[in-house]
């Protein structure tokens, strides 16, 4: 294969991968951003992701309506978020420990109720064919974009705008930065945090529905290879900024597509290394952002890990 052609193939695959693989990261990261902006950490979003994937697949299978599945995944995520938010509002409860417990809980009930849905095929969410103008089938495939990806972009922009320009956004940021100020304003921090955790959990559930209904588009117990956990790390990299969450998610998606894409053009040596690219990237990002004073400044002041 010509080197230029090979490079083009890899770039198209990374573009496609960025769009296909990034959506679950994006939803979980946006959900976690909302939660952390209120001053609380929910490490259990992996559980919301897996449960959302299962619920979406089951609903789509029974009703034949994939969008109802997405709504169901959102609802399942809300319930898990409510559980986390409520438990963490009790005195002397550590939100990190609760998050890990709820992650196991969410995954456990998803596996338990998901057993009958591993075999059947459920209707999937159809992508929008945006590459019809191109004669390159690989590019056409890469631009077969799921509406959920655009929904994620819209939510990211809306969230970014709302955090900076609206009263609820201000209340959320204030609760996360300084609980005493919030109280002085007459805001009930517990209520804000529960709401933020519930909403964040719901978004993570939608991320799960993308996994089971779009890409890779089936339900089984190995479906999420830790995307929910990686996305929590992405939030720190994105410095709690919804727009940066978009870039971070796209970067992770592209890094994940690198391994298979390089092998497909014949660069097959060292595929373990290339497959590890997203994780290596996480490590570097965490080291780099931990050393930056800007990141420390951007962190919500009430977060238990920075206090």
């Amino acid at each position, binding site marked *: 294969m010509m080197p230029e052609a090979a490079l083009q*193939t890899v770039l*198209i*695959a990374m573009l*496609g*991968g960025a769009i*296909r*693989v990034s959506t679950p990261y994006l939803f979980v990261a946006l959900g976690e951003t909302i939660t952390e902006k209120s001053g609380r950490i929910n490490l259990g979003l*992996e559980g919301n992701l897996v449960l959302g994937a299962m619920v979406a697949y089951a609903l789509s299978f029974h009703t034949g309506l994939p969008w109802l599945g997405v709504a169901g995944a959102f609802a399942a995520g809300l319930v898990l978020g409510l559980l986390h938010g409520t438990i963490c509002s009790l005195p002397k409860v550590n939100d990190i420990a609760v998050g890990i417990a709820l*992650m*196991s809980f969410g*995954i*456990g009930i998803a*596996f338990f109720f998901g*057993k009958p849905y*591993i*075999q059947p*095929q459920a209707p999937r969410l159809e992508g929008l064919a945006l590459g019809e103008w191109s004669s390159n*089938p*690989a590019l056409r*495939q890469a631009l077969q974009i799921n509406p959920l990806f655009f929904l994620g972009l819209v939510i990211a922009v809306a969230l970014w705008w709302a955090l900076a320009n609206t009263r609820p956004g201000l209340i959320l940021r204030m609760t996360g930065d300084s609980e005493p100020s919030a109280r002085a304003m007459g805001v009930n921090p517990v209520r804000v945090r529960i709401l933020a955790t519930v909403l964040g959990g719901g978004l993570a559930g939608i991320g799960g529905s993308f*996994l089971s209904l779009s*890409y*890779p*588009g*089936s339900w*089984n*117990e*190995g*479906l*999420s*290879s*830790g*995307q929910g*956990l990686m996305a929590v790390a992405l939030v720190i990299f994105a410095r709690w900024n919804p727009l940066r969450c978009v870039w971070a998610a796209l970067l992770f998606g592209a890094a*994940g*597509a690198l*391994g*298979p*894409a390089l*092998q*497909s*053009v*014949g660069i*097959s*040596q*060292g*595929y*373990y290394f290339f*497959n590890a690219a997203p994780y290596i990237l996480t490590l570097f990002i965490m080291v780099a952002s931990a050393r930056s004073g800007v990141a420390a400044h951007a962190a919500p002041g009430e977060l238990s890990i920075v206090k």
Partner: protein
Amino acid sequence: MTLHTLNRRTLLKTGAAGIGAAMLPFGLPRLAAAQEALTIGVVYVGAKDDFGWNQAHAVAMEILKATPNVTVVEEENVPETDACAKSMESMINIDGAKLILGTSFGYYTPFMLDLAAKYPDVAFRHAAPLWKDSDPANAGSYFCYLNQAHYVDGVAAGLSSASGKIGFVAAKPIPSVLSNINSVLLGARSVRPDATVQVIFTGDWSMPVREAEAANALVDAGCDVLTCHVDGPKVVIETAEARGVKSCGHNASQAPLAPKGFITGAEYKWETIYTMYADMLAKGEALPNVVVGGYHNDMVRNTAYGAGATPEAIAAADAAIAGLKEGKPIYVGPLKDNAGNVVIDKTYDNYDPYLDGMNYLLEGVIGSIT
């Protein structure tokens, strides 16, 4: 997903053991009666209805469960770590299992070997050709040479493909995976000398997102038939069908997943081995250390042909199956690897131990094992 290793079963059994010990004076007669029945413990690395490797074993265990006096205890999603040793040990100590079947490659060394030394009265059998004479006598291996069915896949794929380019999504470069890849190539080249097999390794047995990426990348590279060796082939077969290319299955039947493009698939018949083990233990006979088989002794099969198979492909594949049943060799030497070195110097029998150490991809395979 190694995070949720705190498994339900261990937890329940530990609790049950405590209760059992407390009730020991009252429970003894029932325990004695229960020991006449044969208990077989089986450990799976993934879900037992994964459309793949674990399902192939679980289907065979279901057949075994119907056998009188046989109790089967199963555990799913057990990683290839210390967790598998704990599961097996609890099956021995709590359920009274006399035969432990470890169905994932990484269970054997060191976990099953250590347990075999610790429990000399229990038979340990592992589903990969790894047993050596120096290993404990109560351990052993069983294996079906699925590459024979993959060879048939290759024959059918070669005659069903327009481009002659077959894509292969593989998990890890261990000998049985490499043998399946090489057999697909040799099958395809037996009917179409210019055929190639392009392989992408995902690095692990169950990585659905990366498997979908790999399948898409292979289609983008021009492959018009996809097959795979991963634990759950569902994602690869569904992606192939969605991209409008043909597919060959692996481990269990995936025919329902690809009504338009399915050609055929390589399937295990573990029940042949499992019912044999149960019969021998019931008669009080010692199990053989190594049981291997393929087409000649009914241990593998090919899935019924799907809509993707052309009439010529079906005829050639049927002829290939007939040849394998008579022992016709797949590896007809000399053969070179894809770096140009002669790796197979002469023609080897399909069960020759030399082939179990395969660590190369033959000429015609695009890919690398490192």
